[in-house]
C-alpha cells in the first residue's frame, strides 16, 4: 500500500528540517522530496528489515543479548557510555539513568564537536535566539568557521540567507552575509563579504573586532592598506565592525573551524563575548551549527539530569564534570574504561585511531539502527529502530527548539529507549 507522509523530519543534522515529504510503498521508502543531498541518504539507504542482535558476531535472541549485555555491565568496574546524539531524548534520558545506576562515565558526541562551545557558554553566557527569529528578523548573518553549503545545505534556504521573513520581505536582498574562514569553500559564493583568516588566528581577529566595536584604535601588522590582523586587512575588519554595530538584528553562526582549532573554547568565548557586547548597540545572537540531528538534545538532557552538558562521571555516586578527564577520547586514550556502551554513534570511524582501537580491546555494547565500524568490533549489538524513520521521539534543533519526530514507517524494531529500559532492569 502506498502512502505519502508530509512534514517528516530529517534527523541527519541539527537543522532538523521538518518539511520533508516521504513516499512509502509496501513498508519501504520509495521517494523523498525537499531533503538535501546530505540527508537524502538517511532515507534512501535505510533498511527497516528487522535484524537479530548479535553477541560476539553471532545472532542471538533479544533476551540472550539483554542478558549478556547486563552481565558485561554488572561486571564492569569503570564503564564508559558514549554517543547519544543521533538518538531521541527519551533514550538519552534512559542512558543517563543507566550511567547513574552503574557509576559510569558518560559523554556525548558534543565532546568532539561543540564541547568547547559548551565551555564558552558556561564562561560567557549564551546570547541566543531561534532560527525563526533569524528568518524573520536578521539583516546581518555571519558564518564563522563553518561551511553550511557542505554540512547544513538547507540552513541557508530555510533560515539564514534566502528565505523571506516578516522583516526581511525581500529575502536575500534584505540581508548582508559575511563568511569568515581559513579557506574559500562552497559557502563563499553565498557571501557579500569573505574574510580569509590565517589558520589559527581566529582569536586575534575576534579580539580586534571587539576592540574596534568598542571604538578603540588597533594597530595591525604592515603599513597603510597593507595593515592586517590574522591575515585579514584591518580596513575589512573596520568595515565588519561597523556593519555589526549598525545592523538591525545580527546573528553569528559558528562551526568547528573555531572549536577544533588551537585555542578551542577560548576562541569561542571571544566570539560569544563579542556578540554579548554588540547588544550594547543592537540585537545580536550567536548559534552553533550543530552536526548530529539531536546533539543539542543530548546537551539539554545531560544538563537536566546531571547538571553538565557532557563529560560526566557518576563514579563517586554523584555527577562530576570533567572535560579532558571524563570525555571519551581522553578516557579511551588513557585506557581508563574497562567496558563501553555506545548509543547511536560510530566512534571507531570518528575518533583518533589510538582512542578508536581501544574500543576493540574492551567489551563494547552498541545500540544502532545501522551496521557501522563500531558494530564491527562490538561484543553485543542491538539493531534498534531509527527515530524519525520507524520510531517516534523528540529531538532538539540547533537553536534549542524541540521537534517531534513522527515515524514514516511502521515500527518493526525495538527502540533505544526500550532496550535501555531493559538494561537498567538487569544491571
Amino acid at each position: 500500500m502506498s502512502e505519502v507522509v508530509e512534514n517528516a523530519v530529517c534527523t541527519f543534522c541539527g537543522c532538523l528540517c521538518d518539511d520533508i515529504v516521504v513516499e512509502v510503498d509496501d513498508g519501504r521508502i520509495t521517494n523523498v522530496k525537499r531533503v538535501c543531498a546530505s540527508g537524502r541518504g538517511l532515507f534512501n539507504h535505510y533498511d527497516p528489515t528487522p535484524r537479530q542482535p548479535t553477541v560476539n558476531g553471532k545472532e542471538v535472541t533479544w533476551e540472550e543479548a539483554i542478558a549478556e549485555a547486563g552481565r558485561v555491565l554488572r561486571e564492569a568496574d569503570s564503564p564508559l557510555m558514549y554517543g547519544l546524539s543521533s538518538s531521541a531524548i527519551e533514550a538519552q534520558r534512559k542512558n543517563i539513568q543507566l550511567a547513574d545506576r552503574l557509576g559510569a562515565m558518560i559523554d556525548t558526541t558534543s565532546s568532539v564537536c561543540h564541547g568547547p562551545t559548551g565551555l564558552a557558554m558556561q564562561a560567557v553566557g549564551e546570547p541566543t535566539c531561534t532560527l525563526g527569529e533569524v528568518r524573520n528578523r536578521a539583516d546581518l548573518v555571519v558564518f564563522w568557521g563553518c561551511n553550511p553549503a557542505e554540512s547544513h545545505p538547507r540552513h541557508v534556504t530555510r533560515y539564514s540567507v534566502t528565505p523571506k521573513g516578516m522583516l526581511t520581505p525581500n529575502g536575500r536582498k534584505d540581508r548582508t552575509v559575511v563568511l569568515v574562514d581559513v579557506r574559500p569553500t562552497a559557502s563563499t559564493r553565498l557571501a557579500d563579504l569573505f574574510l580569509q583568516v590565517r589558520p589559527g588566528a581566529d582569536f586575534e581577529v575576534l579580539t580586534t573586532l571587539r576592540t574596534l566595536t568598542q571604538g578603540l584604535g588597533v594597530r595591525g601588522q604592515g603599513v597603510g592598506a597593507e595593515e592586517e590582523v590574522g591575515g585579514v586587512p584591518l580596513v575589512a575588519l573596520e568595515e565588519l565592525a561597523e556593519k555589526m554595530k549598525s545592523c538591525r538584528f545580527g546573528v553569528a553562526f559558528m562551526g568547528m573551524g573555531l572549536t577544533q582549532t588551537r585555542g578551542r573554547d577560548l576562541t569561542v568565548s571571544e566570539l560569544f563575548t563579542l556578540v554579548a557586547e554588540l547588544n550594547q548597540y543592537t540585537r545580536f545572537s550567536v548559534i552553533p551549527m550543530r552536526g548530529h540531528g539531536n546533539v543539542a538534545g543530548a546537551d539539554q538532557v545531560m544538563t537536566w539530569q546531571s547538571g553538565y552538558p557532557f563529560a560526566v562521571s557518576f563514579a563517586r555516586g554523584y555527577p562530576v564534570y570533567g572535560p579532558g578527564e571524563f570525555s571519551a577520547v581522553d578516557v579511551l586514550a588513557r585506557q581508563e574504561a574497562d567496558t563501553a556502551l555506545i548509543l547511536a554513534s560510530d566512534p571507531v570511524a570518528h575518533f583518533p585511531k589510538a582512542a578508536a582501537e581501544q574500543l576493540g580491546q574492551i567489551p563494547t555494547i552498541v545500540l544502532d539502527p545501522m551496521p557501522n565500524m563500531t558494530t564491527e568490533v562490538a561484543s553485543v549489538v542491538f539493531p534498534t529502530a531509527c527515530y524519525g524513520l520507524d520510531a517516534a521521539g523528540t529531538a532538539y534543533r540547533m537553536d534549542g527548539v524541540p521537534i517531534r519526530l513522527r515515524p514514516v514507517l511502521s515500527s518493526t524494531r525495538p527502540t533505544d529507549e526500550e532496550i535501555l529500559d531493559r538494561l537498567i532492569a538487569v544491571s
Partner: protein
Amino acid sequence: MSRRFRLITGRTRKQADGLHRGKETEAYRQATALVEMNADDMTRLGVEDGAMVQVRTSTGAVDVPARAGELPLGLVFMPLGPTANALVGTETEATGIPPFKGLEVEVEPA
C-alpha cells in the same frame, strides 16, 4: 623545499553520502581517503592531480591521492573519517576535543 603543511579535516557532501551508503563501501572510502592541496603546492612537490602522496604526523602516516583544491598555500584538507583520524593524536587540551584542525603534517610523493 618545505614539505610541511597545516592539515584541517571536515565534512563534505560526498563523505555524508558515503556514510549513508555504508562505511565499508568503496563510495565512502573514496570520499574520505584523499587530501586536497593548493595547486601550486602540488607543482612544487612534483605531484600531479590524483597522484598518491604520503601524509605524515607524529601520530601516523597514510597514503592517499592528492587533489587540487581551493586552498591557500601551506594548507591541506582531508574529509572526516578513519583515514584522516590515523593522523590525529589524542591530546585534547583538557576540552575533550582532539586536534582535528591545524595539525602539522608533512606531505611528499608516495
